[in-house]
C-alpha cells in the first residue's frame, strides 16, 4: 500500500534471463534485502464478440495479483476498470458468448519478493506460453501515498541496484501530480504491468515464428 513503480530490466549482454535475474537477486541481498516468499502477476486476454464488425473488437484484460489474492481486476486498455471478487473468472466462463478467451495470450510474471526497510521489491520473469520474454521489476515504497513526493527517493533506490537502467516517472503518475495514489485499488500498479506485458508481447512478434 504505497507508491509502486513497475519497470522492465533489459537482459544483460551475453547472459540468459535466469542469469540476469540471479544477478539482481544477488545485488539485492548485498544491499541487505530479505527474501519474503514469491509473487505472481498474470493477465488473460478476452476478445469482445457479438459487436458489429465495423467496430474493432475491444480487448478485455483480466489480471490477478498475488498481493491481493482475493480480488481480480478487469480492464480495457485506457478505459474503465473493475475490481471484482476471485469468482469473476468463473463469471467470464459463463459470458463465453460475449467474451472469447484468447488462449495462448496469457502472460504472467513470476518471481521472488524482497523486503528492504520500507521497500518491497519484486523481481519476476515474464513468460508467455512458457517462453521467457523479459524481466519485470516492481518497487513499492510503502509509507508514502503521493507519487510526486517520493519519486526522487525511489529513483535513488532503484539506481542502487538496477544501475543505469532506471526508468522515468511512469505515465500513470504523470496524469495526476497532486493526486492521492489510491493503494486499495492497486489499479495503477496493474495498469503499469499491463503496459509492460503489452510491450513485451509486441516485441516478440517480428522476431519469432513460433506462435
Amino acid at each position, binding site marked *: 500500500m*504505497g507508491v509502486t513503480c513497475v519497470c522492465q530490466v533489459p537482459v544483460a549482454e551475453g547472459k540468459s534471463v535466469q542469469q540476469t535475474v540471479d544477478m539482481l537477486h544477488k545485488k539485492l541481498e548485498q544491499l541487505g534485502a530479505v527474501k519474503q516468499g514469491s509473487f505472481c502477476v498474470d493477465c488473460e486476454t478476452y476478445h469482445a464478440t457479438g459487436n458489429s464488425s465495423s467496430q474493432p473488437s475491444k480487448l478485455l484484460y483480466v489480471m490477478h495479483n498475488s498481493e491481493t489474492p482475493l480480488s481480480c481486476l478487469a480492464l480495457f486498455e485506457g478505459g474503465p476498470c473493475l475490481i471484482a471478487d476471485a469468482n469473476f473468472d468463473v463469471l467470464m466462463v459463463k459470458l463465453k458468448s460475449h467474451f472469447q478467451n484468447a488462449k495462448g495470450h496469457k502472460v504472467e510474471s513470476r518471481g521472488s519478493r524482497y523486503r528492504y*526497510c520500507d521497500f518491497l521489491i519484486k523481481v519476476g520473469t515474464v513468460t508467455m506460453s512458457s517462453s521467457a520474454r523479459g524481466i519485470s521489476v516492481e518497487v513499492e515504497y510503502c*509509507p508514502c501515498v503521493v507519487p510526486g*513526493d517520493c519519486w526522487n*527517493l525511489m529513483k*535513488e*533506490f532503484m539506481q542502487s541496484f538496477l544501475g543505469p537502467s532506471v526508468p522515468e516517472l511512469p505515465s500513470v503518475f504523470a496524469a495526476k501530480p497532486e493526486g492521492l495514489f489510491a493503494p486499495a485499488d492497486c489499479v495503477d500498479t496493474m495498469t503499469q504491468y499491463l503496459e509492460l506485458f503489452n510491450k513485451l508481447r509486441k516485441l516478440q512478434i517480428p522476431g519469432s515464428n513460433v506462435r
Partner: protein
Amino acid sequence: MQEQQPGGKAEKMADVVNVGVNLDAFSHAISGIQALRSSVSRVFEFLKDGMKNRETLEGREKQFISEFQENLQAVNRDLNELERLSGLVGRPSESHPLHNSGLLSLDPVQDKTPLYSQLLQAYKWSNKLQYHASLASSLLNQQSLKRSANQMGASAKRRPKVQPSTLVLPPQYVDDVISRIGRLFPDMTIELFRPNGTSAVLLVTLGKVLKAIVVMRSLFIDRTIVRGFNENVYNEDGKLDIWTKSQYQVFQKVTDHATTALLHYQLPQMPDVVVRSFMTWLRSYIKLFQSSCQRCGRFLQDGLPPTWRDFRTLEAFHDTCRM
C-alpha cells in the same frame, strides 16, 4: 622458608596475626614488573630508531632483525620471571580480623559455604555501585529534565502552598490554545479528543504524509506517536489507538525524534509557547519524502529518508548524519 607460609596457613586458621601474603616475593615481583616495562619500552625505542646504517641493504636488514629478536627474547625472559614470582606471592588471606563478620570465616567447609568470601565481594561491589551512582547522579543533574514548575527538596515545606498553576488549567483554555495553533498552519489539522478524563489527546494530520497522536497533560505534551497517512488510527472500539507502533520503520524513527523534541522544547512557565514550537517543528515533516539530507546530499541512508529535523533551523538530516 617463607614459601611455606601459605601451606601452613591451613593449620593455623584461628591465628589472625598470620598474613598469607609473601612480602619478599612481592617486592621481587614489583622489581620484575619494572624490568619487564623497561625491556618493552626498549623494544619500541628500537623500532622507532629504525635500521642503522651499514654498507648493504641486506646487512642493515639482518642487523635490524637480530637486534629485534634479542629485544623480544629479553621481554620473554622478564615475563617468565614475573610469572614465576607471581606464583610465589600467594593470595591475601581471608581470615583477616573484620570484627564480627570475621567469625564467619571460622566455618571449615570453605567449598560448600563460601560465606565470608562472598560477603567481602558483595561489600566491595556495593561500595563501587554507590560510587558510580553518585558520579552518575552528579552528571545527570547538570542536564535538568524536569518539566513541571515544582521545586523539590529545599522548598518541601512550602510546596503545599506553592501550587504549580500551569498544571491545573481549565479545559476550555486548553481547547482555545489548541484551536488557535491549529489555525496558524493551513496544511496541518488538529482534532482534540478527551477519551479519558480531562487530559486532551490530539490527532494531528499533516498533509498527506503522516498522522501524529499527541497525548497531553493539561498543556504539557506527555508523549507522542507518529504513524503513516494510510495507517489505521482507531482501534476496534472506535477509540483512538495510542499505543500501537507504526508498521513502517521511517515512522518509528520519526516517533523517536518527536519524543526527543518534546523533551527538548521546555518552558514550564509558558506551556503554550512550547506547544507552538513543537507544532512548528512537526510541520517541517510535510516534506519528509521530498527532502534530501543537508549533510550528505542523498535521499536514502540505510533505506530511510532524512528523518531528523534540527530543533533550531528545521533542516533535514539523516539520523546518522546529524551534527
